């Protein structure tokens, strides 16, 4: 099945893709066929900067269990640090 359904979110930060580090501007999350993971469907996460072209992309293909575990780990990591430490409005 091709679900086509894509969640899109603006992001602020950087990612490292096939051509090196780049400034990321958005991320997409969708359930569909993976290119590489050995499953019929996976949760696919792309961190992108469309202004830099299609190759400015960090790609993940995860089972739903591990994708959800990753999401929870992100919440735990942020919660364990002082509030605002990694915020856009942080003091440097």
């Amino acid at each position, binding site marked *: *099945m*091709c679900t*086509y*359904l894509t969640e899109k979110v603006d992001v602020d930060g950087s990612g490292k893709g*096939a051509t090196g580090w780049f400034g990321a501007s958005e991320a997409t999350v969708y359930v569909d066929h993976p290119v590489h993971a050995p499953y*019929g469907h996976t949760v696919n996460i792309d961190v992108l900067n469309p202004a830099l072209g299609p190759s400015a992309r960090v790609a993940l293909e995860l089972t739903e269990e591990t994708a959800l575990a990753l999401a929870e780990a992100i919440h735990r990591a942020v919660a364990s640090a002082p509030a605002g430490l990694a915020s856009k409005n942080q003091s440097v």
Partner: protein
Amino acid sequence: MTTLSADAIRAETITIAGHGGDEIEAYRAVPLAPGSRGGVVWIHHMPGYDRETKEFVRRLAVAGYNAVCPNLYSREAPGADPDDAAATVRAAGGVPDDRLVGDVAGAAEYLGGLDGANGKTGVIGHCSGGRQAFLAACSLKLDAAVDCYGAFVAEDPPDGMPASMKPILGLAPDLSCPLLGLFGIEDRYPSPEAVAKLDAELTRLGKSHEFHSYEGAGHSFFSVDRPAYRVEAALDGWRRISDFFTKHLEG
């Protein structure tokens, strides 16, 4: 003088005129031996214009057809890796139906201009390309069409899908050629119910079609590089594709 064998082919990336006259990338494979030949437009699946799709194109050339696969993502992602191109186009909402039809029309026109072209043209696609093969066959004058597990032809898509991904069963009265449909019974999109709905509508309209649904197979059963590959379904499917194109494209 060396005689060219029947399986001698030339395969390469070319540029063709697509929808609106846009220059788009395409992959073609053609037999080298002279002869009268039908043409086939291969519509790649949603994951893109990838190595496995190009292998399908070469297989058709070895079988005696002039074959070409337009890169449907050529505009948004020229020269990009197929997976990066697919991600880019997905994020942009997918390939519009009218552009798809224009690109297939351009590919068919290209095939018609090749030496030995017999004037007969078929279209085939898998996954999203299956839906698009049906769309093309309802929009253009073609001689044969193969829909391999294309979803959202007869059924409504789930909520949240792009507006472009609408059912196209209403186009069925315009189907211009015989249709071969190959499906997996375990597929959810298209489900056996959706396949039955398309089958019934084509029967009601008196449209020539031949559907086969395979036990133990789901979506993507032709994909040799994916766990969904089902050897028995794929082998029988290829046999039916071969018979279908022989019947409708040779001469």
